[in-house]
């Protein structure tokens, strides 16, 4: 049925949860764009036939024609108007035919716009998911887990890269301006204000050695350390370390 494909796409967009994203449905997107293109050609055909039908009706009268299809939104209305102008002509059968086609054009038009809207919504929702994912990964687009990146389209992957780049441009500019010799820890957790200076962490996965202010620490799996929060926070968020006894 008309618009079913777009509806499926919209439903899929709704299924996106905070931690889950379905695979990019390229096939469905293709179906919707295909339907849209088909409907558009149908509309063009119908408008052409309408023009000839009306021209027939108005033979001898004013040679009024419709403006070209450059105004897709206004078109159905204009047709109705000019149609009412000629409504008092005698050819009622032809008139009914025109009305029929008119209604169909209007319906197709709405479907077209609805399709476009669904497509936009689908991509927008996915991009939104991608952005919040990137923030939790400290904007490192290369850190997207393989299980997730399989579900993204190639466009989305380049979107993620570009978004990260856009953000780092801004970060560099602002850090240069505000604190040239320091960093803002731009991607640190933005929701909770810092409470403790030091946190106790247990190492889940080997991270190798990290350099802190007080020297080099070797983060071997299974060991436990008491470290500056800002030194290891990013490792906690990506799951290499575990925060012991968070308050």
């Amino acid at each position, binding site marked *: 049925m008309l618009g079913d494909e777009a509806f499926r796409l919209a439903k899929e967009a709704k299924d996106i949860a905070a931690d889950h994203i379905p695979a990019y449905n390229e096939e469905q997107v293709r179906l919707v764009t295909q339907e849209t293109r088909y409907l*558009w050609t149908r509309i063009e055909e119908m408008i052409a036939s309408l023009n000839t039908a009306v021209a027939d009706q108005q033979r001898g009268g004013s040679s009024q024609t419709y403006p070209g299809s450059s105004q897709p*939104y206004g078109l159905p209305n204009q047709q109705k108007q000019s149609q009412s102008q000629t409504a008092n002509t005698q050819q009622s059968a032809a008139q009914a035919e025109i009305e029929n086609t008119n209604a169909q054009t209007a319906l197709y038009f709405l479907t077209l716009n609805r399709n476009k809207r669904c497509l936009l919504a689908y*991509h927008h929702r996915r991009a939104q998911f991608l952005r919040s994912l990137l923030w939790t990964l400290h904007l490192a687009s290369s850190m997207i887990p393989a299980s997730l990146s399989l579900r993204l389209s190639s466009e989305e992957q380049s979107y993620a890269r570009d978004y990260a780049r*856009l953000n780092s441009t801004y970060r560099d500019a602002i850090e240069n301006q*505000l604190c040239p010799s320091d960093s803002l820890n731009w991607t640190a957790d933005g929701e909770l204000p*810092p409470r403790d200076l030091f946190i106790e962490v247990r190492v889940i996965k080997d991270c190798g050695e990290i350099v802190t202010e007080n020297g080099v620490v070797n983060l071997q799996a299974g060991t436990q350390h008491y470290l500056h929060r800002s030194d290891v926070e990013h490792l906690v968020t990506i799951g290499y370390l575990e925060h012991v006894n968070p308050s």
Partner: protein
Amino acid sequence: MDTQDSFSGALDSNLGLYDDAATSNFEARLEASDSMDVEPEVASTSVRIHATFGVEDEDVELGIDKEAHEDDEDDEEDVAEDDLSLLMRSWVNERSSPEILEYEGATIENLMELVDFQTQKMATQQAALANILRMDVDRVKYLVRSYLRTRLSKIEEHARHYIKETMYRERLSQNELEYAKGYVELEERHVRRSFLDQLPPHLRGLEDVTAEGLEMVPKPDLDAAVFCRVRATVGEFQFEPSEAPIVMRRNNIFITRYSIIRNLLEDGKVELI
């Protein structure tokens, strides 16, 4: 509007508590760092403030410390404190308002200069003191970071609209404006490559307006409900054209549509919470 008054009164006490809890960390820190340098002075200041405060406004018991910081006009507080509370207020305002607000560039720059100064000082201090300073610095950085990021996420939401309207464009910093432009470009490229280029040419627009006046570019919802607290007595204020004006006294809290108090917010007469 008796009912509304009592309603706002009730809210006042509740939210006052909440607010106190939220800011107590910062307050405590402020006092701690102050008392290290100029203990006697600060102590006397705050006593005096409490006293004047009591005279001015009898019906408020909560948030005294906060008031002491915000309403002190005697220029005895140092500059850092002013900038900090200013930024904190802008930060809360920014987080609660549906549209983007004026960029507090100068405040942030001052604060970060101070952070830089503190960081240098840290190197020469004893470990215990240095840790406290570092905590201080971390929290200021958190505030700055959160403020900037809140703005970015708001820009992302309505990037197209902000770029189009001069009023909003002027509220953004140069960097933010570039970010907004880059973001719009990025979004557009993404949808174009993903599907828009496959559509018939007439359907490729992203800023269309339908015959019914529906626009594709989303705008911030200026009629969103917000909580606001009155900072300086406004007097009678017309909330709704159809209703009698309501007296807005200091520290009253109202829940209302953002568009109604928008100008008051710009003048700094109210703050969002």
